[in-house]
């Protein structure tokens, strides 16, 4: 279609940075609260910092630290975090062709696979925009998250209660905005996602179900996807 394939990617860069910067800001603030919670709970300062650099998965980090601080023991903390992160395997399959072709791009890109970066990438139309969106949102979020955690671990609870800013509503809203194009476009995806979300919410409300399981069970919603595509 267009002769200069790179032009669209460059022209959308400011737009992507603008959208992603909000994500970075929110990620940074949540990072501050993670660092603060971990240290306030009695963990050494290096624990949240090392965990954020090496594990780099917000919900798993919060859960693992939560289990540790509640005295649940290292095994339970690890199991909870890993169970929550199994979904990244599914994400990595979905974005495998987006990361890039080089070995380094794939190895480094894999570490940046998160809910937000995958949503950002998949919301784009063509492959080049997807790749740009993944890397722009991913590198920035990694920097913002770790900077936030560092500040939170050192400065403690100076930020106060982040719920007062409505930050807990910002992340679901980010995902709404990013998944809506796919949901609009494809009735099969829409049906699957609705069923999956209903399953996940119902299972989350069920006592005794480990964290991470409800969202995985949402994949059962894909039974409607096959049917939708065949119709």
């Amino acid at each position: 279609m267009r002769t200069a394939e790179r032009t669209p990617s460059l022209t959308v860069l400011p737009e992507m940075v603008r959208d992603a910067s909000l994500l970075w800001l929110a990620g940074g603030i949540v990072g501050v609260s993670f660092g603060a919670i971990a240290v306030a709970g009695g963990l050494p300062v290096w624990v949240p910092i090392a965990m954020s650099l090496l594990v780099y998965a917000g919900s798993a980090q919060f859960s693992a630290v939560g289990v540790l601080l509640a005295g649940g023991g290292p095994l339970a903390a690890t199991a909870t975090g890993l169970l929550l992160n199994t979904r990244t395997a599914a994400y990595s399959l979905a974005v495998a062709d987006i990361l890039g072709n080089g070995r380094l791009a794939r190895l480094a890109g894999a570490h940046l696979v998160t809910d937000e970066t995958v949503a950002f990438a998949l919301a784009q139309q063509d492959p080049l925009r997807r790749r740009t969106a993944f890397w722009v949102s991913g590198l920035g979020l990694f920097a913002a998250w770790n900077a936030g955690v560092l500040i939170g671990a050192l400065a403690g609870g100076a930020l106060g209660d982040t719920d007062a800013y409505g930050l807990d509503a910002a992340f679901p809203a980010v995902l709404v905005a990013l998944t809506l194009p796919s949901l609009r476009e494809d009735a099969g995806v829409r049906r699957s996602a609705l069923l999956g979300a209903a399953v996940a919410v119902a299972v989350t409300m069920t006592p005794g179900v480990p964290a991470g399981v409800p969202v995985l069970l949402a994949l059962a919603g894909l039974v409607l996807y096959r049917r939708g595509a065949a119709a």
Partner: protein
Amino acid sequence: MSPTVAVILALAVGTYAFRLVGPVLHGRVELSARVQELLSAGAVVLLVALLATGALTEGGGFAGWARPAGVLVGGVLAWRRAPFVVVVLGAAGVTAALRLAGVA
């Protein structure tokens, strides 16, 4: 090795292994267009499930009204094709305002 170090390392290695599944298989296993489509759909299903549980629940119970109300406003804004910034700040703003007004 302290138990905390072990937790961090196990989480780091395990999580990275999950994240490598796609890149390692890519190029080695030929995925049909149909499977690729299903994977994209699966990612969207996971994200929507995550946003639904994130919007509605907290610690296995109902999250209260302020958060889902904010997310709902964000959803309406997104549906009306408002800019991303407006969607996210709108959701956070409504939730913050409701809390300020005493709605949990």
